[in-house]
């Protein structure tokens, strides 16, 4: 752990912020999200008052981590690893070969040791004023993860935070803050994991990532809350400064009810972003994602591609907004969303939209909702491939162009295996649906 960079500790401003957030949290009702009368995400079944933060003792090796975490991490080496179970960071690792000035520790620790640095970034993109759950997070977070790549520094190994919930009754308020400073380069991964628990739990996270001028960052957020009743109501935001570049892969592979706001902001000239997400819903899951490609400056570029598939009785909604503010000439961005329906009882909704307040920009969107095509299935069968394998190969192939861009063997394997598992579970349903087409 690097020595403190300044003498200040957890500043009084953050304590004040927590107090203000708590007040908002306590007086705000649980929200319901409605859109156009045909989509509703409601927390009616969430027994919110029965859930609370839960402390856990620290462990001293990866072998003692919950199984679901060990399975996902394997023996991969990280620049820094933070594992938060419930309200407690139970395990952390920092590589011993990191360049000078790199920081990987809990957010609590960072506030104590690096007050100036944390104050500069903390809550600058996700404040506590965006509703009940951003207030809850700001008021109640504990542990948390903090990663910092100093200027002109490249860190090759990924920084990894894992939030795990492995018991019902838990409300987890995770908070991640990561920064790539000027001309630095870093890779951040956040895994949100649960085994198949019996009963309810809540994860309400806030993830802020800053890429400073001429910096480069790759961000991978992976969610698989298993088949239990885990609610995930979170906000994640990536802000990209002048001439910096960020590429973000949000991956959603499980959760009883997920309501997330995922924004990527090109904040200054020359900023460039790529946003490539994927989701797969099954059973009676509900996934409600709202992403914004926000251009706060001209001369910025963006490209958003989302791919999703829905099986069972699941519901998946993807709303993707391109927002270009006033005076942001010469911004160029494109958003596309492709969805695969794999069951007659699934419901998918994809809504690309535009708010453009500047001339001389190019911003457009497109989307498709498809089904597994019988012509493709027949074609593959004439090559000796069984109907069930053909469908599996087609769905895997649908996601493959996104997956192979992770350039991350461990994560690619993890995602392919999870998708294969989900396809196997839903194979009868998918095959019977395809046969009706």
């Amino acid at each position, binding site marked *: 752990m690097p020595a403190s960079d300044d003498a200040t500790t957890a500043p009084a401003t953050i304590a004040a912020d927590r107090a203000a957030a708590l007040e908002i949290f306590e007086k705000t009702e649980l929200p319901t999200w409605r859109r156009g009368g045909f989509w509703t995400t409601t927390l009616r079944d969430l027994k919110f008052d029965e859930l609370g933060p839960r402390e856990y003792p620290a462990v001293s090796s990866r072998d003692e981590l919950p199984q679901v975490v060990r399975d996902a991490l394997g023996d991969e080496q990280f620049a820094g690893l933070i594992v938060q179970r419930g309200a407690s960071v139970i395990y952390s690792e920092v590589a011993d070969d990191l360049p000078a000035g790199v920081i990987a520790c809990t957010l609590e620790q960072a506030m104590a040791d690096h007050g100036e640095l944390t104050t500069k970034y903390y809550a600058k993109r996700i404040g506590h004023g965006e509703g009940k759950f951003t207030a809850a997070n700001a008021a109640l977070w504990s542990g948390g993860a903090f990663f910092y790549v100093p200027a002109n520094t490249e860190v090759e190994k990924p920084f990894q935070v894992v939030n795990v919930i492995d018991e019902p009754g838990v409300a987890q308020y995770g908070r991640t803050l990561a920064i790539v400073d000027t001309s630095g380069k870093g890779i951040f991964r956040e895994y949100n994991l649960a085994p198949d628990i019996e009963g309810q739990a809540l994860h309400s996270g806030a993830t802020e990532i800053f890429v400073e001028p001429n910096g480069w960052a790759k961000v991978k957020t992976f969610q698989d809350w298993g088949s239990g009743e885990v609610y995930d109501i979170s906000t994640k935001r990536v802000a990209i400064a002048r001439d910096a570049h960020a590429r973000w892969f949000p991956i959603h592979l499980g959760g009883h009810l997920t309501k997330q706001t995922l924004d990527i902001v090109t904040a200054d000239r020359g900023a460039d972003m790529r946003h490539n997400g994927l989701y797969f819903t099954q059973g009676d899951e509900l996934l409600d994602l709202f992403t914004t490609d926000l251009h706060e400056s001209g001369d910025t570029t963006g490209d958003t591609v989302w791919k999703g598939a829905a099986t069972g009785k699941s519901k998946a909604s993807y709303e993707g907004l391109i927002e270009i503010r006033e005076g942001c000439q010469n911004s160029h961005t494109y958003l596309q969303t492709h969805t695969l329906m794999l069951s007659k009882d699934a419901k998918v909704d994809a809504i690309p939209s535009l708010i453009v307040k500047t001339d001389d920009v190019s911003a457009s969107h497109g989307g498709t909702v498809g089904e597994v095509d019988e012509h*493709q299935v*027949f074609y593959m069968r004439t*090559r000796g491939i*069984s109907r069930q394998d053909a469908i599996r190969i087609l769905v895997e192939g649908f996601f493959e162009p996104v997956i192979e861009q992770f350039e991350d063997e461990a994560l690619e394997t993890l995602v392919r295996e999870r998708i294969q598992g989900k396809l196997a579970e839903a194979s009868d349903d998918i095959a019977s649906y395809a046969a009706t087409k």
Partner: protein
Amino acid sequence: MADLEIINLHVRTEEREILHGVSLQVNKGETHALMGPNGSGKSTLANVLMGNDTYEVTEGQIIFNGEDITEEDPEKRSQAGLFLAFQYPAVVPGVSVANFLRLAINAHRDEPINVKEFRDRLKENMDLLKVPREFTSRYLNDGFSGGEKKRAEILQMAMLDPQIAVLDETDSGLDIDALRVVSEGVNALRERGMGSLIITHYQRILDYIKPDFVHILLEGRIVEEGGPELVAKLEEHGYDWIREEVASRAG
């Protein structure tokens, strides 16, 4: 009995009957041309041979190597040694040509093919068909030109090494160079003992692949059969000659 025996085949869609009793025999090592104008039922026959269930066989049989495969699944027909090169192949996004070939080959065997054997076979066939190296890492048929799609079909055929292959208008949309390469590939497989049924409504491909037998399909019936001399006659007189011939026979 011939290796592939089509006996009095009647085929219909929901709307109407398309084939009105087609009989045809193809043996391994033989090259047959099936010619006919657009709409005569050529592609329907190709699809029915592979078990496309958008068509219903109402009468007749398809016998392959002595087994009745009329009701068999497409994958079983493929595994038994039948192949169809599609006129309009499907796009398989996210699956590279090489991966698809491996999947298809493995579907034809109990144990997966080993890496070296696969690589050697792929290289040999890519050389044969003058397929550029980068071709195999592209997603199958995704963004392929018409000519590339046809070449990918023939590459699959060469890799799967079928006993009998049906080539459904493989020549349409090919320029003369591509046609020559594809034809050379088919001729090489013929030397390995493959039988083929080459479906076309042009004569051009038959300049490169010399058929042993020629069948002419008109309005769902085979109306004329013979040797290569039929191709020359068609070239000279066109399909109108056949129509008149059929009409006068009926009259």
